[in-house]
């Protein structure tokens, strides 16, 4: 494996994340670092094998903003479903499709997973650039909401969104 800069930074970044996760799991017990070193190395090796560094960049500020947006939307989504559960007759469920502008790979995976957790949408299948969604209420402005999530993800991953 060549150690150019992006690989080295991916290695350092993932290593730090796994170390922090281990510290949390072991609740900071000093005696656990022996097992921890083995676990962290194992996790690092597995992550490098399964998801080799691909030069993905990440904006920390945009990531925080996405996190805040995600939290608020989770509350809206959960409340919407909770209200609908009390009065299921008000649902207007159905299938819909949107054309997405994020590139293949990680951005699309993140988009589909995020939409599953946000108000009123479950992603079903991707056909080319067309994403099929199940929505709880077809009167929702689905295209606009998907576009907002796409913009957040594009800013976080420092990529361009084609429209």
């Amino acid at each position, binding site marked *: 494996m060549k150690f150019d800069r992006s690989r080295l930074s991916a290695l350092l970044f993932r290593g730090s994340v796994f170390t922090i*996760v281990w*510290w*949390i*799991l*072991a*609740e*900071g017990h000093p005696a656990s670092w022996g097992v921890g070193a083995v676990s962290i190395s194992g996790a690092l090796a597995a992550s490098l094998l399964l998801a080799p560094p691909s030069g993905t960049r990440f904006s920390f500020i945009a990531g925080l903003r996405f996190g805040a947006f995600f939290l608020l939307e*989770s*509350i809206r*989504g*959960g*409340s*919407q*479903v*909770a209200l*609908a*559960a*009390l009065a*299921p007759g008000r*649902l*207007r*469920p*159905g*299938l819909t499709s949107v054309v997405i502008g994020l590139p293949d790979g990680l951005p699309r995976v993140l988009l*589909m*997973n*995020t939409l*599953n*957790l946000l*108000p*009123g949408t*479950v*992603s*079903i*299948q991707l056909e080319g650039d067309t994403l*099929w969604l*199940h929505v*709880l209420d077809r009167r929702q402005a689905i295209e606009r909401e998907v576009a907002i999530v796409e913009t957040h993800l594009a800013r976080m991953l420092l990529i361009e969104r084609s429209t």
Partner: protein
Amino acid sequence: MTMLEWTSAALLVAGGAFFLAGTLGLLRFPDVYSRLHALTKADNLGLGFILAGLALQADSVAAALKFVLIWPLVLAASAAVSHAIARRARQNGIRPIQRP
């Protein structure tokens, strides 16, 4: 009870309410796709409230962070599983119920 304990209790009760609503949705929504909404959204929010409530009662920072760490891990699993179920349901020709 201290302020912290009241906040924690309120969060736990809110979490329980969302789990109840999610289960109600699972029983009352018309088809598999709609039921996925109930499971992914209401239950995830309920879990978030319960974890926040428990984190407030934790003995150490690391123990509190452990509760916080559970949330993104469960969210990732739940998002991926609901997508897998929805895709398979569509491949098997299950049509979503569509009301006018």
